[in-house]
């Protein structure tokens, strides 16, 4: 079970409070976690990554274990602490705008 922390606007959109947990088949990667997240909460499709290219939206970042993973390849394994549920995978809205 992967723990995911969403930014406030996406929690509102998905109608969830606090952390969410998703089951991932196979290795825990950015791609498999977002796939699982979108499968559970279809309203998030297009909000974290582009519908067609599946690239991360420019103002969205991925953090975990005090690291910025945003520029890792989508199939790079996530840290073991995320994979085993000890640490959450953070989806962050970049600080920008007014």
């Amino acid at each position: 079970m992967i723990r995911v922390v969403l930014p406030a606007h996406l929690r509102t959109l998905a109608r969830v409070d606090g952390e969410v947990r998703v089951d991932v088949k196979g290795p825990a990667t950015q791609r498999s976690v977002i796939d699982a997240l979108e499968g559970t909460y279809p309203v998030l499709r297009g909000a974290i990554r582009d519908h067609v290219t599946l690239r991360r939206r420019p103002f969205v970042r991925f953090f975990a274990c005090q690291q910025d993973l945003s520029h890792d390849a989508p199939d790079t394994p996530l840290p073991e602490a995320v994979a085993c549920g000890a640490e959450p995978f953070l989806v962050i809205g970049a600080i920008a705008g007014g």
Partner: protein
Amino acid sequence: MSKVRVLVGTRKGAFVLTSDGKREKWEVSGPHFAGWEIYHVKGSPADPNRIYASQTSSWFGQQVQRSDDGGTTWQPVGNEFVYDGVPGTHQWYDGTPHPWEFKRVWHFEPSLRDPDTVYAGVEDAALFKTTDGGKSWHELSGLRGHGTGPSWQPGAGGMCLHTIIEDPKTDGRMFVAISAAGAFRSDDAGKTWKPINHGLHSQYIPDPGAEVGHCVHRIAMHPSRPKTLFMQKHWDVMRTDDGGDNWREISGNLPTDFGFPIDVHAHEPETVYVVPIKSDSEHFPLDGKLRVFRNRTGGDEWEELTRGLPQSDCYVNVLRDAMSVDKLDKCGIYFGTTGGQVYASADAGDTWAPIVRDLPAVLSVEVQTLP
């Protein structure tokens, strides 16, 4: 007694303003979708309880929200807007080719007859359609593909398709407008399109009378006279009486003919409203006086309407989708400002009062007249 529902899109959420037919006391609900940019909210003419809202964010992209109960509750529907085939390129600001990229929905136009059918005008400019209440969207790609698409260029606000008008009398005829490509007409329900910009004159493009490239800000039509269209262009207020084949200027005695919105009185097809803005480099009212101008002849004679509007130190803008009219007698006129005010006139523009004063910057105003 009739009721009025005003649907307001702002930079930080949507608001629904309701009143009885007197239009004196208003209830305000919102913000809906707080913190998101709401470019447009519009109800279906076929079912006024069916409302569509364009919810966008630079962070999290496009959402489409749908209400089936007049704006009380909402459900997200489909948000996948994918250009048909290979998208190709349009011109960028510097004249270089730039790939077509979906950014947001600027305008929803629900079908006149079917609440599940809606047209969406998007940036980068294209026209999309749903026939299943917003669950899925497909592009009417004949518009981008008719030949001039690669030469279209964005205006300062982006290359947006912001105006969609269905002809209520001629099946299959519809009009759209794009900044900064111009106006286009289809006579086969959106399959094929032709530019309709003859008579427009724009000094800011290399050929002022070019077939495309004009920065049309808004077009309005009275449903009883669908061959007559009124246009607020970047500069110039224009009119056509032949469905866009030929345009002529009717700026007349306006103090400045730059502006964004234009609308037509619900019961008088020759009565038109604009809000003149100082210039393309100073997007606020001339002399700090917020004035609506009314034209009762459809020609060159405009009268200023100021009663109840600020006449000093007012430096707001009124954006292209931020004016609308109701169908009551007398006709109500409504507009919203970038300062967060929504003004209403219950007497066709003679007097004005704010419904609300302190909303986020208003992007769009639509009015529903309810039984």
